[in-house]
């Protein structure tokens, strides 16, 4: 029997302390040399072993070379030898008994009850007598270790780290890359934070609150921190501003910057911004804007544009281009980015000759280089280097662009009770008459001296008091603005969390006033706020009462726990309240999710946040924002703007993320992915007939539909009997999918033309969602072929954003396919109202074998058969369409094939499944407010019109939805809402 070398070694290790038999083996060479006293003592002549082969002293078992006993036996024995033999035996036995066999660790020698956890790491856990040996062992093993771990830098003690200055320093270091909002620490304790768009944002709370947040949105109030939205300020003459801005927008998409209500400053407006003069191509994204109301002493108008951080840079560039503002202005004293006093003392770097953007340098490093002042809490955008210009001025037009990122805190309150929450949290500022000469810089006492301003303040207070009596936020005109000055809300902080409830009074005159407010909105005068003034903002931020000071004041109150009576003179904050419209489109649930936006000067974020939280609001993260707009039926910014650059980027990121999740190999598992999905448990999307489960190839979709529509036009809608021609078309589609088309196809665009949308909406109306009749059908031109052609020529390559609500069961998911029902499907629906919908036949995965045998060439024969069996049911709908399945590119390298996913050159998307695909869903969920599955997605305009045209009147607007992981089609009603 042969043992492997390792086994022999193991055995040797195990048995090394065990005694082996002592016997005469060899005679001539006297092999048993190691045998201590054994033979040697008895036979002094052969005293020491002469052996050369160093075998274990006492030989176990039988040696092959064991010869006979040539040597004569000893003739006598002595007591000494006898005793020595015994002693030797005792020794070996002792050794065997005292030493454990198994492990070679020191603590192996310890009895079990004395062993302790992690002894091998911390030798101090061992008893003293073993420690030295263990240390030696440890050193040896560390040296032997293949890779040495880097010695960790010794960190400071916890106490030192938590010291205020050090803590702030650490915080500033940590937000160099991703800026923290003012509520960051509050959020970080309660939310799953994500690093997005250069900010650290709370994604979703760590506690379970999906339903309660929805309930808060629909019946109480949900609070969100939207301070990451960037504010860009434009100052200049009204005409010039409007003229410049008109290049960015188009009247076709709705009211622009020049809308009269918005221009007066009474309403907040929202527009989709395009690159200058490029409409309808190259949109940037949606922005909201707010004009400062006109006032006598100011000739220039002031405009705030609020944009998502992802489009800020592009927008700034565009604005600079349109306004011809190319010279950056360096603020000599205070750039708005830093107003805290310590920096003001420092000499500002005055250079920055080139108005170019420099890469963001790390602020703290600069800080240290200068002279290392103690870390200060950074307010505003802390990561921005002071060298980066934030102001641009145009010499020709007199327009000034100011980047106010992080300068203004923006909180969003969603829900009907937002009014009550605001009213309970804030109180209009009390007048401060005594003028403190020691602090001449405070803005409020100065204001109190002016009678005009006090009048205005009183009016605003009055409006605010009426607001308290309003039952639901949605009653107000959308976008209403109210300027206000309030007391420090920390002074009225309740000791316990309370739930703010409305107090509707039913006095006659109050009713009158309330009605007027609801109908007219806030009067223009009251929309003025001191928040617009940069000097006031800075003053307020600088003179904020510290938390410590407040606590000291609370401590001095005679009755503990009673509220502070005297407001310190610096405790007045100018704010702006902006009504946020709720659901404006559609017939059901109008003004759902309306609320208020609260704009504050920076630095006051937490001072307002905690009091708001104490009024029983729920806090939502980013994902609640998505759900909010989904329920509201409004597109959410990066998600639902596939034609904007940031939308494209978002889609790419999402696709990569989903793909990684799908593969979830060992690599991705490392990053906190607890589940690993083995290949056998993954969905095989090929079998489900889902070509793009993780992303939506919009471009390909719109190109294909464009091609189909052109075919239809040329061939005059005749059946495609001639297979040769179909083959030709197929060839065309395969060979020149994107490159060499007859005419270079432009990029797809999303239809945002109000008129066209209204037309489309009317055409797919006959049954609105849930089958309600609409009242406005009559005005529209009927859908006939001429209208259709006209529409199609006007909007080529465009997608339209639609809302789909399921007719019966089903929950649409991300990237579900929107498909055309066949005539049979519609018949089925007619017969049984609640029918579930057709099934997709299972596709065959021809790549499986390729994945298995990577090196083999794919079988060509298989492809052809697969072409034919897929394209049955759709000829009825689109007769012009050929059996257009692109042949799979055999060259596609088999190395990057993932089982269950189509390799990259996708075949024809539209006709891949038994039902023709129109588009995909970008957001889908069971809508808690509608009570059925709802999805938002895009479909091709061409496809939509053709389908509508072919559908019978009573089923117009009924489509099919199919999730990527399912074979089941569900009926859904399409809605285009304007």
């Amino acid at each position, binding site marked *: 029997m042969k043992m492997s070398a390792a086994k022999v070694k193991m055995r*040797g*290790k195990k048995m*090394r302390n065990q*005694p*082996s*038999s*002592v*016997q*005469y083996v060899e005679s001539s060479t006297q092999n048993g*040399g*190691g*045998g*201590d*006293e*054994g*033979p040697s003592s*008895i036979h002094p002549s052969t005293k020491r*072993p002469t052996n050369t082969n*160093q*075998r*274990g*002293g*006492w030989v176990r*078992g*039988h040696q092959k070379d064991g010869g*006979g*006993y040539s040597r004569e*036996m*000893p*003739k*006598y*024995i*002595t*007591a*000494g*030898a*006898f*005793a*020595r*033999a*015994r*002693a*030797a*035996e*005792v*020794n*070996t*036995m*002792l*050794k*065997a*008994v*005292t*030493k454990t066999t198994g492990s070679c660790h*020191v603590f192996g*020698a310890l009895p079990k009850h004395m062993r302790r956890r992690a002894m091998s790491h911390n030798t101090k856990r061992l008893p003293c007598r*073993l420690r030295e*040996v263990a240390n*030696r*062992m440890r050193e040896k093993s560390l040296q032997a270790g293949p890779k040495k771990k880097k010695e960790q830098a010794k960190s400071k003690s916890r106490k030192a780290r938590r010291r205020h200055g050090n803590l702030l320093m650490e915080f500033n270091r940590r937000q160099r890359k991703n800026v923290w909002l003012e509520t960051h620490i509050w959020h970080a304790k309660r939310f799953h934070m994500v690093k997005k768009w250069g900010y650290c944002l709370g994604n979703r709370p760590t506690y379970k609150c999906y339903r309660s947040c929805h309930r808060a949105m629909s019946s109480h109030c949900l609070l969100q921190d939207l301070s990451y939205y960037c504010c860009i300020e434009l100052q200049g003459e009204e005409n010039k501003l409007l003229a410049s801005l008109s290049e960015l927008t188009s009247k076709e998409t709705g009211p622009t910057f020049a809308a009269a209500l918005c221009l007066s400053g009474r309403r907040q407006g929202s527009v989709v911004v395009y690159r200058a003069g490029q409409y309808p191509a190259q949109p940037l994204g949606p922005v909201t804007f707010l004009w400062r109301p006109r006032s006598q002493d100011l000739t220039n108008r002031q405009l705030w544009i609020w944009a998502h951080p992802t489009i800020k840079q592009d927008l700034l560039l565009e604005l600079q281009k349109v306004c011809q503002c190319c010279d950056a202005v360096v603020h000599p004293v205070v750039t708005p980015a830093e107003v805290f006093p310590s920096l003001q003392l420092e000499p500002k770097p005055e250079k920055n000759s080139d108005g170019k953007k420099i890469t963001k340098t790390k602020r703290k490093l600069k800080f240290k280089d200068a002279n290392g002042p103690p870390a200060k809490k950074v307010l505003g955008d802390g990561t921005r280097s002071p060298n980066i210009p934030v102001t641009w001025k145009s010499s020709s037009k007199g327009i000034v662009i100011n980047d106010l990122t992080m300068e203004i805190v923006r909180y969003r309150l969603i829900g009907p009770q937002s009014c009550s929450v605001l009213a309970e949290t804030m109180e209009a500022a009390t007048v401060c008459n005594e003028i403190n000469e020691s602090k001449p810089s405070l803005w409020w006492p100065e204001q109190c001296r002016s009678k005009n301003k006090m009048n205005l303040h009183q009016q605003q207070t009055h409006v605010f008091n009426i607001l308290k009596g309003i039952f639901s936020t949605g009653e107000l005109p959308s976008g209403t603005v109210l300027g206000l000055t309030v007391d420090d809300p920390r002074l009225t902080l309740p000791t316990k969390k309370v739930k703010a409830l409305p107090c509707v009074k039913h006095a006659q005159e109050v009713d009158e006033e309330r009605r007027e407010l609801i109908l007219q909105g806030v009067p223009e005068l009251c929309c003025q706020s001191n928040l617009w003034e940069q000097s006031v903002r800075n003053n307020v931020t600088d003179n904020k009462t510290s938390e410590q000071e407040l606590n000291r004041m609370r401590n001095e109150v005679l009755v503990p726990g009673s509220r502070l009576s005297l407001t310190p003179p610096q405790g007045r904050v100018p704010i702006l309240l902006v009504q946020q419209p709720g659901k404006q489109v559609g017939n059901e649930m109008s003004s759902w999710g309306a609320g208020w936006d609260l704009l504050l000067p920076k630095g006051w974020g937490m001072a307002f946040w905690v009091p708001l939280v104490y009024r029983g609001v729920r806090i939502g993260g980013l994902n609640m924002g998505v759900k909010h707009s989904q329920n509201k039926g409004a597109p959410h910014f990066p998600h639902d703007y596939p034609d904007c650059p940031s939308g494209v980027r978002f889609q790419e990121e999402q696709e990569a993320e989903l793909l990684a999740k799908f593969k979830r190999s060992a690599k991705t598992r490392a990053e906190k992915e607890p589940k690993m999905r083995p290949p056998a448990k993954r969905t095989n999307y090929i079998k489900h007939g889902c070509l793009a489960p993780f992303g939506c190839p919009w471009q390909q979709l719109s190109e294909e539909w464009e091609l189909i529509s052109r075919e239809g036009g040329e061939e005059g809608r005749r059946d495609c009997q001639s297979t040769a021609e179909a083959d030709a078309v197929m060839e065309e589609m395969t060979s020149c999918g994107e490159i060499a088309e007859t005419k270079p196809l432009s990029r797809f665009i999303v239809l945002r033309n109000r008129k066209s949308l209204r037309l489309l909406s009317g055409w797919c109306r006959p049954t609105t969602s849930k089958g309600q009749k609409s009242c406005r059908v009559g005005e529209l031109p009927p859908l006939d072929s001429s209208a259709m052609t006209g529409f199609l020529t006007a909007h080529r390559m465009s997608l339209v954003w639609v809302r789909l609500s399921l007719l019966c069961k089903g929950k649409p998911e991300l990237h579900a396919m929107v498909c055309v029902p066949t005539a049979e499907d519609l018949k089925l629906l007619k017969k049984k109202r609640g029918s579930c919908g057709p099934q997709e036949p299972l596709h065959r995965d021809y790549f499986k074998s390729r994945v298995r045998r990577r090196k083999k060439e794919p079988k060509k024969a298989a492809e052809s058969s697969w072409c034919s069996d897929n394209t049955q049911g759709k000829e009825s709908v689109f007769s012009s369409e050929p059996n257009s399945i692109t042949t799979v590119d055999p060259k596609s390298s088999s190395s990057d094939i993932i089982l269950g996913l189509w390799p990259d050159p996708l075949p024809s998307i539209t006709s891949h499944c038994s039902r023709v695909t129109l588009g995909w869903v970008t957001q889908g969920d069971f809508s808690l407010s509608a009570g059925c599955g709802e999805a938002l997605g895009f479909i091709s305009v061409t496809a939509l019109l053709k389908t509508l045209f072919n559908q019978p009147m009573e089923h117009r607007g009924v489509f099919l939805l199919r999730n990527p992981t399912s074979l089941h089609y569900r009926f859904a009603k399409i809605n285009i809402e304007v």
Partner: protein
Amino acid sequence: MVRVKSRYLLCEINVTDRSRLLLLDDRAVAAAVRASVARMHGDYGAALCSIRFSVKYLNAHTGIVFLRFPKKCYRLLWSALPFITCIENRGQKIPCFLNCLHVGGTIRTCQKFLIRYNTQQLHRMLPKCKNEEEKHEIQKAILNCTLTKRNKEAFEDEFGSDKEDDSDDDNDEEEEEEEE
């Protein structure tokens, strides 16, 4: 935990002529036991003996032998041991008999017993010494195997301190370390 249980018999081989003891060999002992068992208990006994019987240790100088029997049938096998009268090795017959000193469940208990037994023997020998030289030798032997000292050394030599007293297993240790 479940394990195969055995009984370990610690036996002393008594010979008339002590010098012949050195002829012994573990295979010879095993053969003698087998033969005896077969003689006493027939085929059944021989079969039992073939299962897990082995000679774990034999010291030809002291005549100590460890025998392992399956626990189930060790009494039966044990009963055959007294009938061994001689052990045959390479054509030489060594007349002897086996004296069972200890029965243990593990080899470790047998080792422990053997330690006690041997030291006791040495202590008994000491007063019976006939001359000073003998006495001195025995004293030295006793000192060599005192427990406390050995214990300490045991750890030391295990972990590589080469400070070894000039005892006999010096050589043994060195070789083993080389094997590692």
